[in-house]
């Protein structure tokens, strides 16, 4: 009951966002006037081919770049207007990332990598590493706790990446082509994992992909072509697909 209450309120609001890049003397418009709302607890897929502007949109949503015009609010906070430090502390508390190329730090062990968001928050070492070990066990890496990234397979690295994205219990997790470098069997595992985390903690997932297969995991599919939203529809078939 409460869940449906929360679900009715948008956690991400994108208002009239436009993004231009200077390329040489010309200006390339990557996003034209985007308006979008994402509800709390939703798994939202931003779908598009390469060059459609989906990555640019993700950058605006996650506060990596400032839009040329318009505003992005997460949980009511206008993140496009935060300073660097405000943004850092906002990311610590509310945002998580799963990257396409995993992006684990090569000189840290799996445990240390997963514990990193808590490290930035100033959580004491023992506490944060205990939390990291617990989460790594959940993603099935209990035998890889002290391994370095290069000693792990791609799927294992991405699982550690997922653990890292969720360790601080963020409100929103951004996943940028999270299975882009993985085979199809691992892709299914990874996607199920992301979705199960999101369901457990009622978290919002923004999934960026060009793969229609992956889009099927989402509650809502937003399709982008040439910097414009061409469709924004609720995905009905996903219910049966992953609520196992």
């Amino acid at each position: 009951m409460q869940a449906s209450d929360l679900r009715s309120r948008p956690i991400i609001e994108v208002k009239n966002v436009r993004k231009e890049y200077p390329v040489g003397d010309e200006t390339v418009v990557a996003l034209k006037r985007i308006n979008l709302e994402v509800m709390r607890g939703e798994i939202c897929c931003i779908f598009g081919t390469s060059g459609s502007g989906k990555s640019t949109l993700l950058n605006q949503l996650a506060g990596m770049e400032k839009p040329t015009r318009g505003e992005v609010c997460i949980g009511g906070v206008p993140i496009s207007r935060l300073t660097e430090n405000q943004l850092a502390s906002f990311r610590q508390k509310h945002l998580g990332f799963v990257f396409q190329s995993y992006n684990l730090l090569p000189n840290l062990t799996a445990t240390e990598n997963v514990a990193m968001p808590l490290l930035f928050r100033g959580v004491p070492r023992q506490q944060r590493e205990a939390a990291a070990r617990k989460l790594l066990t959940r993603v099935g890496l209990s035998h890889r706790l002290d391994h370095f990234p290069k000693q792990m397979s791609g799927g294992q690295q991405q699982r550690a990446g997922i653990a890292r994205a969720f360790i601080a219990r963020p409100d929103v997790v951004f996943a940028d082509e999270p299975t882009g470098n993985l085979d199809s069997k691992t892709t299914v595992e990874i996607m199920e994992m992301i979705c199960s985390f999101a369901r457990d903690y009622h978290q919002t997932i923004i999934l960026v992909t060009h793969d229609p297969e992956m889009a099927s995991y989402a509650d809502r599919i937003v399709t982008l072509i040439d910097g414009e939203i061409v469709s924004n529809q609720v995905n009905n078939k996903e219910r049966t697909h992953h609520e196992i």
Partner: protein
Amino acid sequence: MKRNDLMHMCLQNLLRRKSRTILTVLGVFIGCCSIVIMVSLGIGMKESQDKMLSEMGDLTIITVNAPQGGRGKAKLDEALVRRLKTISGVEAVTPKQSLEVDSVRLMVGTGNRYLAEWSSVVGLDTQAMEQMGYQFLSGAPAAKSGDVVVGQYLAYNFKDTLRPEGMNMVDRWTNAWSEDGSEKELPPPYFDPMQEKLTLEISSESGKFTVPLRVSGVVKEDYSKGSETSEGIMMSLGDLRKLLDKAQGNKKKAVPYDSVLVKVGNISQVAQVEEEIKAMGYSTESMESIRKPMEKEARQKQMMLGGLGAISLFVAALGITNTMIMSISERTREIGIMKALGCYVTDIRVMFLSEAGAIGLIGGVIGCIVSFIASVVINLVSLGPSVENLLPAILGGEGVSRVSVIPPWLLLFAVVFSVFIGLGSGYYPANKAVQIPALEAIKSE
């Protein structure tokens, strides 16, 4: 981020690129060594110079004389003594007055066997002697009337009246130096003044009279305080006044002091105190006039040596900057990831600054240890390599002149300076690191 996490991360990053870190540290270490060794040579030079000067006399004594050329208002009197005592930095003041009569003879021994034909007799504030820095070789300052203090070599002024002329004095000048340039042990004088009663014979216009004197102490020769510390007699002003009155007979007149000695607490205050006294209209003398130019020269040499050393440390600083820039361009993606995960900008800055600072610190500490050892080796070579010279080579001491002197402050300074060099050269790279956007994390390879 917690401080110990930052430190842990900093060490981890330094150890990641061991050979590069070691090479950069080596640069700082060489720079630090060259500064410390160079400055220590300068200090050693100055130390032996100071030693030489202080053997010539007390460097903190100022002699105040009546103004040159005619008699002004500025008189050497009790009022002046009181005024001098109030100057800040002045520890003690004593007036000096010499016994000006036709002749002074001293006699010692049974039947006055030993005789000094001439001697300077000076009256001063005997109670202030210790404070003034008179060094007593034996005995103590004169405490009561009739007591005197004599100079170190007074006894050598006496001749033995029972021996033939030409062979009746102990010579302390010829053959005083041995062939290798060191001072030889002096032959003993005929008597020990502490053990004998002196008889002072004064002749003046009003006649001749003798006074018995008891020697209460012997002071070390010190030319900054006057020649009486060598071959004269010092007594209280009161005693001297009585002798003068007696010698002058009926024509009693007030005689001003010959000079006033001022003892300054610290050598660094001498110039200032001297300046102040000069401003009062008196002429002054002190070892300062010799010490100043010598010190200036020594300082110039020290600056030159230190500057040479500093050049290599600055080269090392460039090395640190280079290393940090390299490591930042290697870690661009990492920094982006950390930012994306919510690392504060300040933490990133602190991380890189502390890496650069740590390189400086490690280089500085190793540099200090090595230059300390090098300094001891240099000193051992100059003192002669033997085990008993080891301690003087490290700590110095009375009569040991070291070539290289490393005071504790120099080590501390070198370490702090190295750390600052590290931080300074890490500043630009750290700023570069801070500007790396979180977007770097998302860029695909």
